[in-house]
């Protein structure tokens, strides 16, 4: 039969995995093995080649760096630019204020991030519900994602942060941080809902069929079989959205809240020196790098797991 070829490939991989895992394997072979001349030559050649590649990479990096440095430093406006954007004095002055502002960004990220994950999941699940009872819920969830994915975040923020206080409603907050956080949550929930939904749809229908054939109802199949797999698969894009949210927390400053960007802005307005912006930018980058590295690590780990066997 034609499918045996494909199958034997997988079996081979499995066997290898088993052997490495601790099964004794064909005994005694390891001690008797002496690398052949061919293998020694091959490995020597590969080592030489990798040394050469490292040398070339180092040289190329050096040349690129020097060229960039010369171009920037020899630019006609460099002395002035250096003073306006890279002033050590203003950097020292700005850093504590920027960090103080950053604390607000971090808090917003944590609270909005959690809210976004919960709301996004609820919306995604609402869109997959079947049955006539859930029709309005499905429509509502679809309309929500369509609307808030399309609406520019900045306009959403202005409507919520400036518009809601203008209504002068009793008992409704006018705190720009709370309102800004609400606006961020509204928009990002729509993005994250779509990420979750894509994950749910990426789980092969045979998994749901297997769950249903065991007698699990629709809700149980979703909860125990589909969602765990969907969430696992979507971790990288979810982290991506969280990094993006982290940067966008700066936008709450349009309501007057003082975050890292706004803190820099205040100093710039007073001094007409742009160094604080550079400081704020670098601080955000420093905050993002661990998160992107974490994303990469999670992705790589999951790819490795899938490469190991992944029968689906």
């Amino acid at each position, binding site marked *: *039969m034609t*499918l*045996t070829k494909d*199958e*034997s490939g*997988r*079996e081979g991989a*499995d*066997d290898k*995995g*088993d052997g490495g*895992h601790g099964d004794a394997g064909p005994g005694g072979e390891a001690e008797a093995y002496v690398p052949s001349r061919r293998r020694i030559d091959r490995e020597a050649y590969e080592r030489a080649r990798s040394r050469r590649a490292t040398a070339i990479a180092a040289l190329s990096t050096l040349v690129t760096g020097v060229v960039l440095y010369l171009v920037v430093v020899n630019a006609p406006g460099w002395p002035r630019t250096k003073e306006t954007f890279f002033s050590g004095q203003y950097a020292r002055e700005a850093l504590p204020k920027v960090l103080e502002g950053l604390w607000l960004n971090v808090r917003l990220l944590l609270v909005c991030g959690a809210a976004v994950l919960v709301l996004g999941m609820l919306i995604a699940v609402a869109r997959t519900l079947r049955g006539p009872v859930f029709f309005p819920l499905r429509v509502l969830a679809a309309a929500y994602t369509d609307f808030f994915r399309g609406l520019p975040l900045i306009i959403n923020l202005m409507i919520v942060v400036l518009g809601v206080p203008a209504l002068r409603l009793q008992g409704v907050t006018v705190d720009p941080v709370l309102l800004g956080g609400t606006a961020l949550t509204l928009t990002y929930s729509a993005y994250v809902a779509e990420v979750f939904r894509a994950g749910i749809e990426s789980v092969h229908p*045979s*998994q749901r*069929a*297997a*769950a*249903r*054939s*065991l*007698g*699990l*109802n629709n809700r*149980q199949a979703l909860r*125990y*079989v589909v969602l*765990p*797999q969907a969430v*696992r698969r979507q971790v990288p894009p979810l982290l991506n959205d969280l990094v993006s949210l982290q940067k966008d927390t700066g936008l709450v400053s349009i309501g007057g809240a003082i975050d890292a960007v706004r803190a820099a802005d205040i100093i710039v307005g007073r001094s007409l020196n742009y160094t604080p912006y550079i400081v704020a930018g670098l601080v955000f980058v420093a905050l993002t790098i661990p998160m992107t590295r974490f994303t990469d690590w999670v992705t790589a780990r999951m790819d490795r797991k899938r490469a*190991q*066997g*992944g*029968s*689906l």
Partner: protein
Amino acid sequence: MSDEPVLRMESVRKTFGGSVVLRDVDLEVAPHTVTALIGASGSGKSTLLRCANLLEDIDDGAIWLDDEEITDPRVDQDAVRRRIGVVFQAYNLFPHMTVLENITLAPRRVHGVARAEAEARARELLERLGLGGRAGEYPDRLSGGQQQRVAIVRALAVRPRLLLLDEITAALDPELVGEVLTVVRDLKDDGMTMVLATHEMGFAREVADQVCFLDGGVVLERGSAEQVFGDPQQERTQRFLRRIVEAGRL
């Protein structure tokens, strides 16, 4: 126990889009018997099994499980599926769960069995099927034959009234087929009622009490294994079996 059929199908019709897969299928499966469905690829064997488990809605006809018409729209489909075990060609194990979790999911979540009890039964079944040491492994660490045996254990863990086996050896390497078929043989000896779609004619001949040859959306020929394989009446059955023999598979 009465001799009322466990599964009965009457004039079942199933179409996908424009193509008629099951035209008019009648089937009766007596308790503690094995029914083998044979026929060319696309003859509707798998569809018939999916209909029996209500994974597909039928267009016409009716299906009974122990006197209850399960195709009645008022029937609780989940309750019906709880009484039927299914093993799929592609195993369909849950990749994010260990072997033990795969097996105990339905007993615990659907049947409300306590965890310790569910796990004890799972381990007992695994032991019986030669998978004693595998309870903590994830499915992708197992060979195809082992995965399929786990899938069988998963189906058995809820003590089904009827077991449906859908080409369970078709995705396996030839040397792994035997270990799975041995399990089916043992289940037959235990008195499990089974319907299996298969291309393993030698096995069908050996294990089946009833053989049904599907062709053109109907059960064209049925009888004991002896009758259908030894003395087929229909010309199309004869031709099908001749092709199988020529391919060296009987």
